[in-house]
């Protein structure tokens, strides 16, 4: 267990960043309404790390104990140096995973990835219907995804499909699983939307009702019993509908590290939303300092930063007070209990969201798609009413 010092003094941590996520670019040809990327990502599209900087980051993280490497984005294939990154990952002994929409994956590139030693490819799929695929991603990518799935299979890769679930496709869970089976998927992750970044802005459009979630889970369990070990199916329960919060990232700075396109080093996908935090950057003091010594990574290690009711809660080790980003986004206080918890004094915020999801037509606002134009607007202070809807004032 890491010692705790509220990020003031240098710390001694015995944790290791087993999982390294390299968000190599925020550029993306898709415009998914549920993207967890920061809504102000457009700030970080001009100052991406170079190939050499990525290779150095991979080496440094490996020394710290990193094993599983995710190469993600945005769409990582928009960079032309993924082949070089893959070769280095293999040399260093990572188990590497390309997380892609499939756009930009050609025979030539997949061949190079295979030869370079990439271990697997995770492809995002959206629905069984072309209409919903194209609507939610705001692109015409339906046919392409099916072609890419076949290409992945033909090259002897395990087929790992990730399907983000929201109100528009939750009614098609059975058909989605049948499609996955027909494509020969080995792993299927049904990732219920969690509400950060663009998905939080679009929550009133995306969030299903409790009944829909329960039904989807039931269908998933039946399908799992039918296919057995042949296709592993993960159904990630959305935490809004749970009694207790998730142990976010398995603990802040415990096993997970993200390096973002511009080199910022984060303990979770959306940590940059937190106020008054200075996240380390690989261009400054390197990854070892970032992981072990940076005030940001030490800030929420351990439990002495917790407030009531978490501080004295007998269950605090189970969930470490939940998600700091969710606490901040919904209550304005990053150190308060995650409002998902039924013991949180702010739990009514979640109850209201669940209640609103029963009457979506009354709540729904137009979708703000993840586009450079919308990101620029948000940076410029437009669309504030959409963002402010979810930020309770401190």
């Amino acid at each position, binding site marked *: 267990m890491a010692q705790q010092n509220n990020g003031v003094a240098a710390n001694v941590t015995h944790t*290791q960043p087993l999982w390294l996520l390299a968000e190599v670019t925020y550029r993306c040809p898709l415009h998914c309404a549920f993207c967890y990327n920061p809504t102000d990502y457009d700030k970080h599209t001009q100052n991406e790390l170079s190939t050499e900087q990525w290779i150095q980051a991979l080496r440094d993280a490996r*020394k710290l*104990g990193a094993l599983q490497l995710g190469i993600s984005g945005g769409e990582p294939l928009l960079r032309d140096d993924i082949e070089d990154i893959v070769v280095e990952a293999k040399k260093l002994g990572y188990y590497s995973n390309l997380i892609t929409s499939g756009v930009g994956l050609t025979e030539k590139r997949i061949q190079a990835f295979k030869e370079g030693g990439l*271990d697997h490819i*995770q492809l995002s799929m959206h629905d069984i219907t072309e209409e919903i695929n194209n609507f939610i991603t705001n692109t015409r990518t339906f046919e392409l995804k099916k072609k890419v799935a076949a290409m992945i299979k033909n090259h002897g*890769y395990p087929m790992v499909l990730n399907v983000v679930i929201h109100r528009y496709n939750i009614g098609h869970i059975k058909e989605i699983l049948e499609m996955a089976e027909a494509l020969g998927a*080995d792993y299927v992750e049904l990732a219920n939307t969690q509400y950060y970044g663009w998905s939080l802005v679009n929550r009133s459009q995306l969030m299903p009702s409790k009944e829909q979630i329960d039904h989807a889970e039931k269908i998933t369990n039946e399908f799992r019993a039918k296919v057995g070990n042949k296709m592993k199916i993960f159904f990630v329960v959305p935490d809004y509908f749970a009694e207790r919060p998730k142990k976010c990232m398995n603990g802040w700075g415990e096993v997970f590290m993200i390096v973002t396109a511009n080199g910022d080093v984060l303990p979770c996908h959306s940590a940059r939303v937190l106020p008054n935090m200075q996240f380390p950057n690989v261009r400054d003091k390197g990854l070892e300092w970032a992981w072990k010594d940076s005030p940001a990574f030490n800030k929420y290690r351990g439990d002495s930063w917790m407030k009531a009711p978490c501080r004295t809660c007998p269950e605090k080790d189970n969930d470490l007070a939940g998600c700091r980003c969710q606490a901040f986004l919904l209550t304005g206080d990053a150190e308060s209990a995650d409002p998902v918890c039924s013991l949180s004094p702010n739990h009514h915020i979640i109850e209201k969201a669940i209640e609103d999801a029963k009457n979506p037509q009354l709540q729904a606002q137009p979708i703000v798609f993840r586009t450079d134009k919308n990101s620029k607007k948000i940076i410029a202070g437009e669309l504030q009413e959409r963002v402010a809807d979810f930020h309770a004032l401190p």
Partner: protein
Amino acid sequence: MQNTIQHTDIYAIALHHRFQWEEAQQCYVILFPEGMVKLNGGAGEVLKLVDGQRSVGEVVASLQATFPDVPDIEKDILAMFDLALGKAWLRKLN
């Protein structure tokens, strides 16, 4: 035991899985899509010998020779094969 394991069976690490020594963790690990498992000492010693060549009987004999003081080691080894098969970490070659 969930699986019937014969001394003549030959196993290899399953497709899309990788077994390797980790210097930083000082243990063997098994890596696969979306996951990893750190193996304890005994489990690592067994899987190290699962190479697609040796039979289960040969793995048992080899470990009995390496650890002569461990009582009833065969039972532990077969339990490890059973666990690894249940987790789909291994594939049977014969």
